[in-house]
């Protein structure tokens, strides 16, 4: 059985504008290994949802199979969750989203779940620009099946099993840009400062928001020879920029120095304020975004932060021109043409 947290609440717990405390965004106690990167990523999701004052029950959490895919049990336990089958989170999320466009969809997957068995579904959810927050907790290995290399393991990287990975690795961010994702970011589970605003930006985005969350597996892939270890990642990160997320209707209070920042207005009116570290990193141009990733890779560095965003793009519902009413609320009166129409159809078959 999953372990539920005691329901004790401190009377003075801070509330957000929707009158929820941070605790309302928590889930069951994690059964992952102590120190697993996925738990930190989970915490960032909780923090972002709390800070955005999202109503927990208006979220649907969907995942595939893997240690990472278990995490929806560990956050937002007032939301419905669906732990589906290996590599198929995107299709479940597609169906769910088609049924009710009014909920917020958080899809959690792993690098095995996404870059191997689920590559097809990953690609096509991106291509259709499904309105989904797609968070891939990437540890370069298959945690749940005990540490085999995954398709995102860097060439030459070696986990606990010892043998260096002989194959090329798949860069999910680069691929996501290529395949049409409209919001692409990379975070590190160990850097909450950066990850929380990235998640908030994703949530505000309409369309597919993909975050590659580097999330070390302490049990199988945190070795000195692994490029997905805490240590290695800390030593090699390069950020596109630091980043403030300003939700709609919140006053901008920080003063930004002229020329040092770039502003992106999201679909819902929220604003992302990027503080450029290096003025050449434009995140609204697809080609430049891919170049930025490649350029850092050439230097042996791992680019993180918001990598690409296009806030004004049609999501799946816009593309198929579906009704603004959630399809799951339509009734006989909306859906059934009735016997009169049927008799006319009969006539066409005579």
């Amino acid at each position, binding site marked *: 059985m999953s372990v539920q947290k005691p329901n004790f609440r401190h009377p003075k717990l801070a509330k957000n504008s929707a009158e929820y405390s941070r605790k309302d965004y928590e889930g069951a106690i994690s059964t992952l290994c102590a120190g697993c990167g996925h738990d930190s990523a989970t915490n960032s999701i909780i923090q972002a949802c709390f800070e955005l004052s999202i109503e927990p029950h208006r979220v649907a959490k969907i995942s595939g199979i893997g240690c990472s895919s278990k995490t929806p049990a560990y956050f937002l*336990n007032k939301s419905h969750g669906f732990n589906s089958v290996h590599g198929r989170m995107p299709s479940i999320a597609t169906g769910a989203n088609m049924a009710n466009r009014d909920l917020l969809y958080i899809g959690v997957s792993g690098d095995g779940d996404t870059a191997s068995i689920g590559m097809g579904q990953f690609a096509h959810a991106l291509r259709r620009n499904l309105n989904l927050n797609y968070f891939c907790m990437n540890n370069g290995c298959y945690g749940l099946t005990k540490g085999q290399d995954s398709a995102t393991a860097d060439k030459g990287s070696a986990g606990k099993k010892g043998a260096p990975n002989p194959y090329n690795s798949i860069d999910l961010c680069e691929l996501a840009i290529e395949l049409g994702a409209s919001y692409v970011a990379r975070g590190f589970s160990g850097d909450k400062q950066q990850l929380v605003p990235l998640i908030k930006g994703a949530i505000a985005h309409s369309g597919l928001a993909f975050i590659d969350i580097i999330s070390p597996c302490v049990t199988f892939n945190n070795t000195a020879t692994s490029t997905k270890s805490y240590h290695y990642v800390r030593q090699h990160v390069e950020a596109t920029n630091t980043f403030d997320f300003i939700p709609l209707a919140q006053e901008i209070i920080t003063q930004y120095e002229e020329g040092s920042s770039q502003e992106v207005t999201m679909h819902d009116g929220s604003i992302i304020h990027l503080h450029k570290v290096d003025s050449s990193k434009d995140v609204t141009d697809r080609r430049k975004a891919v170049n930025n990733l490649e350029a850092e890779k050439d230097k042996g560095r791992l680019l993180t932060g918001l990598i690409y965003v296009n806030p004004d793009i049609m999501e799946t519902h816009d593309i198929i021109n579906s009704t603004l009413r959630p399809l799951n609320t*339509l009734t006989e009166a909306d859906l059934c043409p009735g016997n009169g129409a049927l008799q006319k159809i009969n006539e066409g078959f005579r």
Partner: protein
Amino acid sequence: MNPTMNPIESVNDFVIRFANVNGSGSASANNLFAKAIFRLGVPVSPKNIFPSNIQGLPTWYEIRVNEHGFLGRRGGVDMSVAVNGQTLLKDYKEVLPGGYFLYDSTRELAEEFNRKDIVEIGIPLTKLCNDEFSNPKLRQLLKNIIYVGSLSFLIDLDFSILTESIEKQFQKKPKLAEPNIKALKLGYDYAKKYFKDTCKLSVKKTDKLGDDILMDGNSAIGLGAVYGGATVTGWYPITPSTSVIEAFEKYSKMFRIEEDTGRRKVAVIQAEDELSAIGIVIGASWNGARAFTATSGPGVSLMSEFLGLAYFAEIPAVLVNVQRAGPSTGMPTRTQQSDVLACAYASHGDTKNVLLFPCDPKECFEFGAQALDLAERLQTPVIIMSDLDLGMNDHISAPLHWDDKRKYDRGKVLTAEDLDNLKEKWGRYLDVDGDGICYRTYPGTHPTKGAYFTRGTSHDEYSAYTEDSAIYQAGMDRLLRKWDTARTLTPGPRTKIKDPDFGIGVIFYGTTTHSAYEAMSRLEKQGLKVNTLRVRAFPFQQEVIDFINKHETIFVIEQNRDAQLRTVLMTENALSPRKLQAILNFDGLPITADFITEKISDLLNIDLQNGPKGTEGEKA
């Protein structure tokens, strides 16, 4: 003509088979002919026997005309309309003695065409066509129309019905009607001039059809899904199922556009594969929309993992399986009923899925809607088991009907109000009513109540993960309780008891039905009053079990090699294999009445005086 031979003579009861080249436009000419017979009130069943090819390979179109309304395949060919050089000799050989062979006499028949027992009717189709029309594309199409004109004279088919049909077809392009009518006339006149009193087959107007319709099963299922309120489909193209979704889209365009906004009250997603297609259905159903998909054998194999998830996590899902000949890619354009086992027990672990077996377009329509009710009521996958013959061929059927008072059965779903009124703690998998069906909630319903974690891992009554053996087993047992409830909700069998004391009963389902009933009627003429039962759903109802128990011997007629329904009947009801005897046709063509009659006669060791008409070659 050989003076000793007896040309087949028949009014409103014969089989004509057209041999054409795929992609040569013959389909519309052949349809025109079949529809004309239908419009004369004469029961007719056209069947396309086509290759997995877009252009160039041989294709046949077999039309059965039968005033008594027996419209399964009979077996045997009374008249061959042979306009494909590649198969000319084969088509020639397959005509029954006394039958007719209509061919394009622009080229003379070779020496080996030397039968003395059939009537040859040479119409110079190519020459007539080329002399009259110069446009090469038109020439190819109109050559087919010319033979329809000739047939009209030969079998005494009212010419005006044909011209009216053409005019109706080209209502919007009257310029095209003109050459078509000219072509009809060319063929008609030639036959009239050279083949007067040659053909003893004829069609006579009747009123046998009442208000019946002529429709394909796939259109009927797609339409049924619209009426049943499906709003989401994910799908991946595969013959012979594609036209189910095409029909759903077509009727959605007619009926599901929001008047004020022009937006669609439906989401149709062409998925990347069948894994995704069924995932979309499950995701949508989980979230409270009615969803369905359609596929064929290879797609079912891919969907199996997900079907098990839907079974175990108890999520509604409707799947239409338009079966084709397997295994593997098999004969993708030929028909079979060979996915019964694969669907009944689709997925690993102890899994059982509800199956519905429609036999005609009306039932396709009804099951298309009813499956959505059943899936939501039972919170489980429901698979409609159609096949290529039913799905892609036109069938005569009673007209479709919808009861405007009918409400969708959305099953056990708790609203926010229900949740607030609950006295006990709610559990997603708590069997409150004792029927094995638990109460579910849609995401987003209530701020604090009713959220749960859906999982394919084992779970307790509150949907929490568990590896406790007793809890796991209790859950699996409850699913069997639900299965028993399913038995009472699925469509029951159709039984015909001719003689309650007769020890032999026959069981069949789906498209086997029509040929089976015809065979039974022939046997009845021999004094054999066989009782029949048509299975319409799995799990089997008590009536099915009673029927089997009442008879000493049961014949189970199916269109597969391994007697799949028989296997399911045996395992589910602990029956002796000796009691159930299999009658199996798996050549990829719709089973014939000849075949069934012969098999049953053989098994019962009886000699049929007026033996069936079929020939061996016909089943090649």
